[in-house]
């Protein structure tokens, strides 16, 4: 067994004890969640870039000057993206207000808030990339690392977990596997606890999801199809009394005709 103090220091003396039993392992209770494949024999667990704190992706290069507001002559911004951001900026007394919608728009184009995406937004909005990167870091829906384009949020908050959300997340993850196009993650309460356990597929809410529907849902996510059309939130019309029962076809108060929502699968909502 090998014990190394600092895995990054090539001069660090290696301590080798032949045949010794593996130690009980570090005290887990005090440790952040371990990355996959972490070497538990290390005395100090290291994450990306040698950091002791997880999530420090892409360490800063301190030898460089911080980037300023990009020069419009040097940065190419897709015309549609530029128009969208400028439209957002025109809505507010202070154009900086458009930061979140603009980053979200760039993320739709690039798949994530990549350095290039951030630079394009910075160029149109006349802000520094550092400022925008800080904004990206604050919000859960803005991705600071490269992820798949199919975004799946599985709610694992209290109400959903009381109805089996943790199993749903595990089985959906298992079913989808390591797919490069899919960004699946547990999420905080999505505001749809009435259809728990549920998930949001690219913004479409579906639920309650039964265990036997998971393989079908996984297939639809991977192939970018409409997820479980019969279980989408917009189909649910009943707000009260018969809550959670979808099968009450309601007549209009005005015309007495049947609810069109139930006839076209909720598309008109």
């Amino acid at each position, binding site marked *: 067994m090998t014990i190394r103090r600092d895995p990054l220091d090539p001069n660090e003396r290696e301590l080798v004890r032949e045949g010794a039993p593996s130690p009980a392992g570090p005290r887990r209770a005090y440790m952040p969640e371990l990355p996959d494949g972490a070497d538990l024999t290390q005395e100090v667990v290291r994450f990306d870039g040698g950091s002791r704190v997880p999530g420090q992706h892409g360490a800063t290069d301190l030898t460089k000057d911080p980037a300023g507001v990009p020069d419009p002559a040097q940065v190419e911004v897709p015309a549609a993206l530029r128009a969208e951001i400028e439209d957002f900026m025109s809505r*507010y007394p202070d154009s900086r207000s458009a930061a979140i919608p603009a980053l979200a728009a760039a993320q739709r184009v690039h798949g994530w808030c990549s350095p290039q995406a951030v630079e394009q937004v910075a160029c149109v909005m006349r802000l520094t990339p550092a400022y925008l990167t800080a904004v990206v870091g*604050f919000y859960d829906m803005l991705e600071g690392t490269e992820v798949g384009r199919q975004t799946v949020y599985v709610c694992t908050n*209290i109400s959903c977990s009381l109805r089996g959300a943790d199993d749903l997340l595990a089985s959906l993850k298992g079913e989808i596997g390591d797919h490069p196009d899919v960004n699946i993650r547990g999420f905080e*309460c999505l*505001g749809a*606890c009435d*259809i728990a356990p549920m998930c949001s597929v690219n913004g479409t809410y579906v639920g309650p999801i039964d265990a036997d529907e998971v393989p079908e849902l996984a297939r639809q996510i991977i192939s970018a199809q409409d997820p479980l059309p019969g279980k989408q939130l917009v189909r649910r019309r009943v707000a009260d009394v018969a809550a959670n029962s979808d099968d009450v076809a*309601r007549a209009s108060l005005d015309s007495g005709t049947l609810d069109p929502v139930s006839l076209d699968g909720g598309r008109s909502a």
Partner: protein
Amino acid sequence: MTNHLLFQDIDEPGLSTIEVYKRRGGYLMAEQALAMARDSIISSLKDSGLRGRGGAGFPTGLKASFIPQGKMDKFLVCNADESEPGTFKDRELMQKNPHSLIEGMIIAAYAVGANKAFIFIRGEYVQQAEILEKAIEEAKAAGYLGPDVMGRGVELDMWVHRGAGAYICGEETGLLDALEGRRGNPRLKPPFPANQGLYQGPTLINNVETLTAITYILKVGAEAYAAMGVEKSSGTKLISVSGNVKRPGNYEIEMGMTGRDIIYGLAGGIEDDREVLLWFPGGSSSPVLTKDDLDLPYDYDSLAGAKTMLGSGAIIVAHDGNSVVDIAVKTASFYKHESCGKCTPCREGTSWTTKMLKRIQSGEATPMDLDVISSVCEQIMGNCLCVLGDAMAMPVASMVTKFRPHFEAHIEQARAANEARLLAELDAPGNVLQGIAAD
């Protein structure tokens, strides 16, 4: 008692279109309001007894009266962030009845003299944001919004602003920072947003349900609204019932109905006909109640009397098949994740409470940890910039106090299970530690 006011037309097909909404009497109240004096709208809001439905329960008419008079840029912001776990009432309103929110906002904006209005909606509500945007387009085309609202010389511009996933942006000053394009860190109060809010201008911030209720208060009259419900908690409240109930969903009730009538009546009782272990009366930030509290009337003051709160009106019910330890871990982890990190008691307190609770969950704790948790929670309360810290401390402390025997039993059980597992590993053939252990 149920009473359909905000939900009176909610299941009308196509209500989200201006055509159907107007057929059901839509925008008549806005027309009427714009012919009224501003003061008289605010005083009828005061008379109605309407209190903020976003969580804090502050009297709406009073808040509107704090907005300074005079000609200047004033803002109206609708808080549609709805991220309090267990809450989904605003979603239903925005999705099915968006025009009544817009109408309420026209009335509120006119009453305080705001000429620019924003609906800050959480980024996850993609479909609801699209519905709202479409509804605003329709209202603009029909002349209810724009430079000259209904030809009355009043300007009102309205936009939907989408967030990007952060609970703290529901806190009114965090929301303002997010709306200004920054990280959503709450601001020190005072100054309150009514004086210095968005872009330093006077800003009225209200919840979706509060603003929608304004439309209906004008419809039925302030006195009739005040007569509903109970004293100091007048009117109807939308409640979101979820968790282990047979019929989770949104219900509209007159305040003062008992918890039992809501959970066993409206929501159909507990799944598998089990017993209630605990319930959150007002979202996950409210201190929990047990099955002994089911007969409490559901209104602001009765719940405050029971040392909890009505909050956002989200009732989460857990049955006795669940472990209170797991629920406590879920609760604390949520606040740990959502803490903005600006103040130490909240940032560190939520993080350490979560670690301690996880230690309890995995059987690496002693009963003393429960005392440490209680003391950490005590030190968070009242010592933070916003109430997110308190929002974790209150429910967690209430669980640890009310369910201490459950926690202690779990600690002992999990510890014994760990010990048995380790001993079994030691006994396994070939374990080199065997000789040492024998010494």
